[in-house]
C-alpha cells in the first residue's frame, strides 16, 4: 500500500503558468513593438508628456507655426553616468540641452521628440523619474514633447538609458545670432560660474577619494535669452559651453568669427569647491563642462544693460563680463593671467573627464 501511495500523483487542477507582468522592470519585450511596448508608452510616457499632438499617435507629429519667421532644428544624444546626479538627471539634461541649443541661435523652443534606448533591467520607477523630470524641464522651457520612440537593448549593451532628442524652435524675424558674428570691440559675457556640471557628475560617480559639494548647473536658458533680446536685439553670439568647456567654445567662436578673444583670468567666476576639485585633479575649469551657462558677445555699449537683465533671471545671478573681442590674433583665444602674463587658450585635446555626457 505504501508503495502505491508514493506513485500517486495528486492533481489539484490544471494550471497554465501565467506570464509575469514585468511591471517593475524593463525587459526586452518592452521594445518589441507589441502590446508591452504600447502599455509602456501609455503608462510611462503619455501621462507626463500628455498633449493633443502626442496623443494623436500618428507616425509623425504635425505642428502649426506660430507666425512668420524661421525654424531652428537640433538633435543631441545624451549619455551620462550616473543617470541621476546632484542638480539633475538624464531626463532634465536631455530637455535642457535641446532647449539651450535652440536658444543659442535665438530660437524659442517649441517642440521636442525623444528616442529612448533602454537597457534591459532598468527599474521602471527610475524611468518614470526620468520622464517626470523631462516633463518639468519641458514645461519650464516651453517645449512640447510631440513624439518619441522606445527601444530596449539586451543587458550590457547600453548603460541604463540613452536619450536622443530632436528639438524644433521658432526664430522671430529680426534675430541674427551665430558663432560667426563676433566683432572687434564686443563684450564677452558669461551667465555664471563655470565647471559646476562636470565636477558634480564626476563627484557623483563616487570614484574620487573626496566629496565635492557641487551641484550641476543644469538649466534651461531660453528665458534668460528672451530677456537679453528684449534689451539688446542685436546680440551677436550666443553659445552654451557644454562639453569641452568655455575654452573649447570660445575657440569655436574665435575661429568662426575670424576674431581674437581676450579673457581676463581674474574675472572668470569659479565656485571655490569647483576650483579646489580642479586643483586636486589637475583640471582647468575652463575645460570642464557646463549645462546651464551661456556665453554671449554683445556690442560693448549694451554690455551693462544686458548683464543687468541676465542677473535678474533665475539662472543668471552671477552673470559678468569675462573678456573682449579683438581683431588680432584672428582665430585665437588669449588670456591675461592674474599675475599679468598672457597665455594661449587652446581647445581640449582629447578626453579629460571620461564620459560626462
Amino acid at each position, binding site marked *: 500500500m505504501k508503495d502505491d501511495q508514493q506513485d500517486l500523483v495528486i492533481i489539484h487542477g490544471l494550471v497554465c503558468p501565467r506570464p509575469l507582468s514585468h511591471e517593475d522592470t524593463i525587459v526586452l519585450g518592452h521594445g518589441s513593438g507589441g502590446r508591452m511596448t504600447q502599455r509602456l508608452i501609455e503608462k510611462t510616457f503619455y501621462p507626463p508628456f500628455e498633449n493633443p499632438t502626442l496623443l494623436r499617435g500618428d507616425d509623425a507629429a504635425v505642428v502649426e507655426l506660430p507666425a512668420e519667421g524661421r525654424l531652428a532644428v537640433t538633435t543631441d544624444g545624451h549619455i551620462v553616468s550616473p543617470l541621476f546626479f546632484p542638480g539633475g538627471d538624464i531626463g532634465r539634461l536631455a530637455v535642457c540641452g535641446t532647449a539651450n541649443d535652440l536658444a543659442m541661435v535665438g530660437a524659442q523652443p517649441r517642440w521636442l521628440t525623444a528616442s529612448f534606448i533602454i537597457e534591459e533591467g532598468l527599474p521602471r520607477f527610475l524611468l518614470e523619474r526620468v520622464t517626470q523630470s523631462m516633463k518639468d524641464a519641458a514645461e519650464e522651457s516651453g517645449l512640447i514633447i510631440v513624439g518619441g520612440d522606445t527601444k530596449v537593448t539586451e543587458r550590457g549593451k547600453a548603460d541604463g538609458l540613452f536619450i536622443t532628442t530632436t528639438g524644433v524652435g521658432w526664430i522671430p524675424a529680426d534675430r541674427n545670432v551665430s558663432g560667426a558674428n563676433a566683432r572687434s570691440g564686443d563684450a564677452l559675457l558669461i551667465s555664471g560660474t563655470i565647471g559646476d556640471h562636470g565636477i558634480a557628475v564626476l563627484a557623483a560617480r563616487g570614484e574620487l577619494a573626496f566629496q565635492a559639494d557641487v551641484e550641476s548647473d543644469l538649466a534651461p536658458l531660453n528665458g534668460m535669452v528672451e530677456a537679453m533680446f528684449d534689451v539688446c536685439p542685436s546680440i551677436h553670439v550666443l553659445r552654451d559651453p557644454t562639453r569641452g568647456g568655455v575654452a573649447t567654445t570660445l575657440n569655436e567662436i574665435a575661429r568662426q568669427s575670424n576674431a581674437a578673444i581676450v579673457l581676463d583670468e581674474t574675472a572668470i567666476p569659479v565656485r571655490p569647491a569647483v576650483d579646489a576639485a580642479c586643483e586636486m585633479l589637475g583640471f582647468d575649469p575652463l575645460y570642464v563642462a557646463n549645462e546651464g551657462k551661456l556665453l554671449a558677445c554683445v556690442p560693448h555699449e549694451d554690455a551693462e544693460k544686458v548683464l543687468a537683465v541676465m542677473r535678474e533671471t533665475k539662472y543668471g545671478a552671477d552673470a559678468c563680463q569675462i573678456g573682449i573681442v579683438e581683431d588680432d590674433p584672428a582665430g585665437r583665444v*588669449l588670456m591675461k593671467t592674474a599675475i*599679468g*602674463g598672457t597665455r*594661449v587658450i587652446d581647445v581640449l585635446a582629447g578626453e579629460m573627464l571620461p564620459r560626462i555626457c
Partner: protein
Amino acid sequence: MKYVSEYRGAKLVQGVLEQINETITRPWVLMEICGGQTHSIVRHGLDQLLPEEIELVHGPGCPVCVTSLELIDKALAIAGMPNVILASYGDMLRVPGSGRDLFSVRASGGDVRVVYSPLDAVKIAQENPDKEVVFFAIGFETTAPPNAMAVVQAKSLGLENFSMLVSHVRVPPAMHAILGSPHNRVQGFLAAGHVCAVMGYWEYGPIAEQYNVPIVVTGFEPLDIARGILRVVQLLEANQALADNAYARAVTLEGNQPAQELIRRVFEPCDRNWRGIGMIPGSGWCLRAEFRGYDAGLRFDVEAIQPKESPLCIAGEILQGLKKPFDCTAFGRQCTPETPLGATMVSSEGACAAYYRYAHIDVPESS
C-alpha cells in the same frame, strides 16, 4: 581659493620680479627640474614677465615623459592580455608606445582603468579576485610612498592578484647626468618642491658643491617660482654654490622621514632607462626581494619587445635642457596633443604640451 590665491596675486609676484630685476647683472641659464613647474610657468605667463637675462630650460621631471618606451610597450602588452585589469594614472593612457597607446588597447577590448591613487588599484584587486590587477607605477620620489604603501597593503591583505609595473625614477641621479654632460648649459637649478617634501634636500648640497651650481628648492605657484628664481639669481650673482630652500612652508632639510622609511622598506635603487635620455645608473627604484612577487614585469611573460621611437621627436634633448619645444620641426605640425610623437607632448607636465597649450601662438594650428 584660500592658501592658493595668495600665491597667485599680481602684486606679490610683481614685487619679487622687481627684486630679480634689481639683482641680476648678466645672463643666466636656469633649469626647473619639475614638469609641474614648467606647466605653472607657462600657464601663468610667468616666463614673459622675467627679465630677458634669464633663460629657463625645462628639466626631465615629468614621470610620464621619461618612462621608457620598453616599459610602456610592456604595459600595452599586459593590458591586452585576457583576464587583466591595468590601472593607470590618466596621463599614461595617451602616451604613444611603439605604434599604439593604452586608449587603443582599451578600445580593442583591454580593461584599462584610470585611477587617482594606487590604493584604488588595490581596491579593484580586492573587488575582482578572479582577475589580475596591474598598477602602472610611474613617478618620481613624490609618488613612491603611496605606491610603496599599495604593495604593503596588498601584502597585508594577502592579495595575490595584485602587482605593479614599476617605473620609478629619482631626481638626484638625473641632475648628475645633466650636470656631468659636456653639453650642459645649466647654471642654476630650481629643485622640485614636491619631491623635496618627501625626500628633503640634504641630497642636493653635495651636488651643488661638486658641480658649482646653486640649487634652490622651489614650489609651484607663480609666487613660489618667482621666489625660487630670485634666490638662485642671488646665489649666482654672489658666486655661491649651495642648496637652499625657497619652499619652506612644505619642505624641510630632512624631508618626510616615515615616507622615506616606507620607500626604503619596499624599494631599492636600480639602473633605469629614461625615455629620450638613456640609461642613468642607479636612477630608479625597483621592488626589494621580499616584494618581488608583486613585480608585474616578472609575473607576466611578455615577449621580447623592439621599441621604436619617432625619428622626428627631440624629446630627449628637450628633457636635458639642450633644446626647446620650438626648436623641433615637428612641433605643432606632425606632433600635437592629439597626435603626439613623443611623451613630452602628452602629459600636462610635458614641456611640449605646456608650450603647445599655452604659448604656441606663432605655430600654425593643427587641423
